[in-house]
């Protein structure tokens, strides 16, 4: 919501900063889009297994950037300034992906007779390693100013400060994969059982339970959106 003084201020600043016609970057945009299309075409032509991943990734990145979405802010904002709009958006995204994965999974496997290893998606055992990993990631993401998706889309938009973050998380992942992931795997994950809700409860009850819990969390987030000043 703007006001008369702010409108006047905007006009004044426009003159002061001499913003007439900012140099147009559209040309770069069109060329890059052409390159992306050609690359996608090449991926399809050579029937690479990444043929859908690349264009969908580009579209997701555009969506994240235009809507100014931020996973890090969705978790951080409720705790620092009490706003939950982004958290509500993330919960909605989780509900949509629950439904999506439900459809993908029931189409792929025989729901009465399946092995967990056949189910599309990443299913791993949960444990204290998950908690500690989450805490470490949370600390890192607030200091870095974003998590992986936010950093990548901001670098794409032009905010090059976060290239440091990109280098850091590539280095970290490579070091982990090469050196110490097998150690943690053997210590915490090896031999533990994977709890997969649809196996325990059945597909439809698991779906209803998850969507109900997420829905309740969504409404709780709406209520929590504090009206008081922080």
């Amino acid at each position, binding site marked *: 919501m703007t006001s008369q003084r702010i409108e006047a*201020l905007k006009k004044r600043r426009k003159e002061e900063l001499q913003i007439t016609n900012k140099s147009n970057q559209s040309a770069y945009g069109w060329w890059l889009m052409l390159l992306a299309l050609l690359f996608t075409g090449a991926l399809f032509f050579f029937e690479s297994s990444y043929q859908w991943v690349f264009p969908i990734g580009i579209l997701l990145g555009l969506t994240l950037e235009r809507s100014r979405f931020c996973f890090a*802010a969705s978790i951080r904002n409720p705790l620092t300034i009490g706003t939950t709009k982004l958290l509500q958006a993330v919960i909605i995204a989780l509900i949509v992906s629950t439904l999506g994965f439900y459809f993908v999974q029931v189409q792929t496997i025989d729901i009465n007779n399946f092995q967990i290893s056949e189910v599309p998606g990443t299913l791993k055992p949960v444990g204290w390693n998950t908690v500690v990993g989450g805490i470490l990631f949370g600390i890192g993401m607030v200091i870095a100013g974003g998590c992986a998706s936010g950093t990548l889309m901001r670098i794409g938009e032009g905010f090059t400060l976060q290239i440091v973050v990109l280098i850091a998380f590539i280095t970290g992942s490579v070091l982990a994969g090469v050196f110490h992931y097998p150690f943690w795997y053997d210590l915490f994950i090896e031999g533990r059982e994977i709890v997969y809700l649809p196996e325990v409860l059945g597909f439809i009850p698991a779906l209803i339970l998850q969507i109900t819990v997420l829905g309740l969390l969504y409404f709780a987030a709406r209520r929590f959106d504090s009206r008081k000043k922080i």
Partner: protein
Amino acid sequence: MKEEFLDCMHEACPIPLIKALKKLGKMKAGDLLIMQTDHNCSITNVIEWVEKQGHKMDYMETGKGEWEIYIEKVVTDE
């Protein structure tokens, strides 16, 4: 009716928002705050918070990927 500048260029989330919070806390009703930032996540954050507090605001892109956010403080903290 003072005008304050706040330079948050090249700062990552959540620094611009925290700086704006502190600066606005010290300002009186009717003062204007001009915030310069180049982080698009801050725009969503700051705008959301400012509107909730009841202040008036608008923003403008002043360069490639740089924005200025204008906030007029409407309510004084008790």
